[in-house]
């Protein structure tokens, strides 16, 4: 049996597969459909300190081989998450990565402190890159992302690093000039890993309703862009990369790994095929077996060396 296990900082995953935040709910939504304990790790929907109602409709819109979403981080807040969602995740007995977002640094720190005290949480993913929250601080209501500013990224990761010993993952945005700079900032500030990528700012026209739909673009349409981000970042940082963006099958997953991802996140594909995670894990194992590769770690970044 080939070895599929990988380490993402302190996190030990029995295989490189995790689910991308926000597309897999709290895990329980998929319990009838797949054997959840086969997954490498579960990343939750992003939570916030206080409950968040999310954006009004329209929240999702299909585009050519892609999906625009503007959910707006709807979640029940930390307390209800811990009370009602965490015990199910814990029972699966795989690493649990909690994705978090906050209005400001103080709130990020507070949220992290409280999560840090909870044994059943293995990792924290900082969502520095949600494209669907309008800034209340700027007059023009433009969307400003922490992950668009290397200094802010560094400051945020650093402050959060101080208050947690759990695996800390910075989730970055592709909506930048040079994503490697942001990855370097996260690494310098003490992140254990970077997660790339969140969705692209996008826009579509709903002709039927005569409205514009804005949101973050995901799905197979963005795969080449995500792959390029992983490829470039691999060259610039030492910490592991969780590669995400348009992965629809085993071949896609292999490409991300060979371009430099230590682990991979599957998002939108779960909506299309709820068994995708298990199919990709089996697919990776078969690939290694057929090629007589003993350890998946041999493949990480292998495109760079050939």
């Amino acid at each position, binding site marked *: 049996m080939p070895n599929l296990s990988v380490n993402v900082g302190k996190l030990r995953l029995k295989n490189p597969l995790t689910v991308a935040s926000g597309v897999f709910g709290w895990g329980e939504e998929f319990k009838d459909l797949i054997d959840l304990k086969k997954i490498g790790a579960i990343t939750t929907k992003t939570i916030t300190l206080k409950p968040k109602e999310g954006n009004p*409709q329209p*929240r999702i819109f299909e585009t050519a081989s892609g999906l625009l*979403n503007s*959910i707006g981080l709807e979640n029940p807040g930390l307390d209800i998450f811990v009370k009602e969602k965490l015990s199910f995740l814990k029972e699966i007995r795989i690493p649990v990565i909690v994705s978090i977002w906050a209005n400001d640094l103080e709130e990020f720190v507070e949220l992290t402190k409280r999560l840090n005290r909870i044994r059943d949480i293995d990792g924290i993913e900082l969502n520095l890159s949600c494209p669907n929250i309008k800034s209340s601080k700027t007059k023009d209501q433009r969307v400003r992302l922490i992950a668009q500013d290397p200094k802010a990224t560094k400051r945020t990761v650093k402050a959060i690093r101080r208050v947690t010993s759990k695996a800390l993952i910075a989730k970055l945005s592709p909506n930048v000039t040079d994503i490697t700079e942001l990855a370097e900032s996260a690494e310098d500030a003490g992140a254990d890993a970077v997660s790339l990528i969140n969705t692209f700012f996008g826009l579509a026209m709903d002709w039927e309703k005569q409205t514009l739909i804005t949101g973050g673009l995901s*799905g197979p349409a963005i795969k080449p862009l995500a792959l390029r981000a992983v490829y470039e970042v691999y060259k610039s940082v030492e910490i592991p990369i969780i590669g995400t963006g348009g992965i*629809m099958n085993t071949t896609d997953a292999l490409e991300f790994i060979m371009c430099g991802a230590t682990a991979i996140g599957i998002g939108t594909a*779960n909506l299309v095929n709820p068994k995708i995670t298990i199919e990709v894990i089996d697919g990776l194992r078969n690939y290694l077996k057929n090629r007589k590769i003993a350890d998946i770690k041999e493949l990480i970044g292998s495109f760079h060396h050939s």
Partner: protein
Amino acid sequence: MIIQEKAKILANLKIIDKYYKVVLFSSQIAKGIQPGQFVMIRVTETTEPLLRRPFSIHRVKRKKIEILYEVVGRGTKILSEKRPGEYLDILGPLGNGFDINLKSGEQKPKILLVAGGIGVAPLLFLAEQLIIHTLRPSAILLGAKTKRQILCEKEFKELGLDVKISTDDGSKGFKGKVTDLLRDFLSTANTQQRVTIYTCGPRKMFREISLISKEHKASIFGSLGEYLGCGVGACLGCVVKTKRGFKRVCKEGPVFDIDEIV
């Protein structure tokens, strides 16, 4: 329990114009599915269109699921081109269907079914189940653009139901919308008896029904046909605003008490 199944297409027939019926063999999902619940169908293995499409259950006969659908875009067009013998990847049963259980001590209401166009799809299965539960509907109000597009008249009559028809052009039955027909129907009805209306269609129609039936203190349960993402409650893409906050159409719905929706 939600199941993903490869269901064989037994038949896929055009009924009239853009309306089709597909019959699927489902060894697992057909079991225990309730009226108003739905399945998500993956119509292609390519990424165009990307998402699954939701469809209500029109009728179940042992292990056969019937779906009545209207071709409105890419996904339904692809579905209409599928041939018997091919397989469809389906996910179900999903959502909460129509609640047809009376609370203990509750008197039987006068039940009306109201549908415009393709909205009739889940109501045949519902009518069958209501009859089994000795809650025979007083009438089914069917609306269509024109006479030839009236769906399921025969099937409802075979159940022994009183079928009232409206057409936009007056080519059969009442001339006007199905909601006008409902107003007409209720104006002659006794306002003392409690009325329960089951319906399916666009939200605009729900609002009209709600206004029309105000004096009758009717309870109205409608199946919403919003855009869905995952169908299993994970992506939060399909929420609708209710008096108690956002609710997921695919999970808490698709059937809602219309008074709850804001």
